[in-house]
């Protein structure tokens, strides 16, 4: 039967049956449609919510950021010469990271070096944290320049004596008058203020406190300035290196390679700590899994309900068609051919019902997502599940009527009035 096109004929015959019995076909397809719509719509709503939650986490928690932090090496007794000679986390580690094979996934790098210093202006004198920043620190942390300018590449490279202030710091050190162009002294170093960052705020609800308030306390200077003139550190040691990797899977690979590179830079000493990417991955996948399961289950229930209706409709229609089955058998159709014809019809109907179900499911998900103010996310996986379940149940519930039809005795089927 290879080149006889039997499959094509069966599909075209099934299509004719469906087309010529629109009422019956519609009833049968409705069950499938509702099941598919329920699985697809439900999963999409849950995906949309999860994506929204992820966006919030990204903004406040930074799940797309991979941090490298220095740690103390715990040693019994006196430290070895190797440990004493070790330099800790430094700018060279950030450069190694950017040179990694898997660094393609990295879209930004930031370095920082914290220093505690006395900060003086004409109007204030306070002990403050000063942050030495490098590379993409400003952009990665979402700071936006409101007045003046940000650091130029040259500033960061050469360690120019310039500073950009957070909005709180600006209002403390310069409560009145011009800010940009004024001078502050950080420790012994006179530094010129070249810009002010816009206020950062994030509130879960209106009226609640600004949980980003601490970020406005920033006093940023080039990290090379901190290393060169404040710490006198030739090795440009750092407190934190942050790589931004939007793709979590790629982040897992990158973090592995990075750990190896930094370890070898540090003469095989574990004096640094990397964020645990595996834990993040796990959290990302477990979130919403319960909801997906619930929607999957409701879809399955709809499909089972629809499937049982289909069995009944198929059996009833078999009574109308029993004579045709007899004719086909008389002209030589074996039972399995009759079986295949019934199955083809049921599965074709399932596919058609699924197609309509997609549309209904998308509209359903869009309406709900829209009403709760969340952008709609359609994951390929939801389409996959919806189709798989519909086909599985379509197949399962078609088996009995198809088997019953195929086991008719041809003579009795022909005599059937």
């Amino acid at each position: 039967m290879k080149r006889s096109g039997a499959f094509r004929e069966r599909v075209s015959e099934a299509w004719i049956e469906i087309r010529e019995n629109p009422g019956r076909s519609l009833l049968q397809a409705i069950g499938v449609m509702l099941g598919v719509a329920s699985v697809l719509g439900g999963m999409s709503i849950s995906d949309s919510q999860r994506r929204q939650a992820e966006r919030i986490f990204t903004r406040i928690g930074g799940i797309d950021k991979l941090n490298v932090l220095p740690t103390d090496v715990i040693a019994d007794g006196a430290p070895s010469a190797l440990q004493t000679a070790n330099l800790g986390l430094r700018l060279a580690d950030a450069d190694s990271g950017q040179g990694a094979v898997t660094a393609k996934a990295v879209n930004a790098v930031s370095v920082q070096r914290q220093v505690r210093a006395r900060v003086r202006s004409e109007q204030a004198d306070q002990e403050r944290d000063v942050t030495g920043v490098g590379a993409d620190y400003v952009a990665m942390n979402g700071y936006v320049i409101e007045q003046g300018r940000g650091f130029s590449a040259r500033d960061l490279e050469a360690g120019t004596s310039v500073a950009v202030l957070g909005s709180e710091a600006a209002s403390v050190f310069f409560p009145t008058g011009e800010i940009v162009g004024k001078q502050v002294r950080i420790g012994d170093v006179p530094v010129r203020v070249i810009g002010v960052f816009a206020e950062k705020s994030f509130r879960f609800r209106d009226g609640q406190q600004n949980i980003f308030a601490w970020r406005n306390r920033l006093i940023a200077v080039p990290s090379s300035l901190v290393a060169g003139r404040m710490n006198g550190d030739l090795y440009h040691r750092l407190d934190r290196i942050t790589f931004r990797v939007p793709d979590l899977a790629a982040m897992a690979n990158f973090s592995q390679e990075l750990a190896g590179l930094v370890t070898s830079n540090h003469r095989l000493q574990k004096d640094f700590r990397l964020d645990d990417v595996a834990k993040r991955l796990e959290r990302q996948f477990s979130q919403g899994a319960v909801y997906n399961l619930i929607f999957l289950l409701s879809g399955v229930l709809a499909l089972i309900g629809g499937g049982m209706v289909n069995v009944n409709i198929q059996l009833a229609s078999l009574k109308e068609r029993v004579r045709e089955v007899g004719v086909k058998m008389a002209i030589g159709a074996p039972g399995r051919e009759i079986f295949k014809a019934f199955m083809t019809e049921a599965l074709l109907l399932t596919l058609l019902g699924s197609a309509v179900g997609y549309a209904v499911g998308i509209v359903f998900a869009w309406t709900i997502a829209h009403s709760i103010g969340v952008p709609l996310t359609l994951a390929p996986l939801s389409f996959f599940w919806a189709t798989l379940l519909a086909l599985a149940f379509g197949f399962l519930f078609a088996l009995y009527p198809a088997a019953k039809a195929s086991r008719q005795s041809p003579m009795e089927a022909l005599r059937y009035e």
Partner: protein
Amino acid sequence: MKIIETCGLTKVFGSNGNAVHALRGIDLEIRRGEFVALIGPSGSGKSTLMAILGCLDVPSAGSYALDGRQVERLAGADLAAIRNEKIGFVFQQYNLLPRATIARNVELPMLYAGVPRKERRRRGQELLERVGILDKAGALPSQLSGGQRQRVAIARALANRPALLLADEPTGALDSQTGQEVLALFRELHEQGNTVLLVTHDPTIAALAERRVELRDGLLHDQEAMAA
């Protein structure tokens, strides 16, 4: 060469207590190229014999060789393959598939036989031309007259070049004029070498056949050879 050779065919319906003996031992031989009429009143066992000869049913006892092959023990798919390959049915009620076009109806037995699509198309056209309704190939059975439908049924019966054409009251649902035309077609097919077994209750129709076989109360009563 014998197309049909039966020996002691019996068919019993029901069980011990109220068994009905529809056939009580049929010995029948039909040679290749014969035109035989099977006649008998209703209740004589005609339909039962026709079902067994047509491989739609199996006998309770006795042997049946169709075109040299013993078929009395076959079942299911094997019997379906024999029907497909060796027998062309023509029914009183035409029994065309109502939602399939004329062309598709005629091609269906070839589809089951696994004939490639192109060959099916070609032969389907050839058959429709032979019975004189090629122009209706795209129509549905409901758009045709009774006589035309019976022609389609005959074309379908010939599709796989069967060893035996089995016609059950083929003119029963037609007016006499159309019935005559259909019978003429059977005679023509017979003259071209086909073996035809015509089942009827009407002696005037049976008179058209070369040979008449009469069935009464489950027994072949009378076998009379007639001049063509």
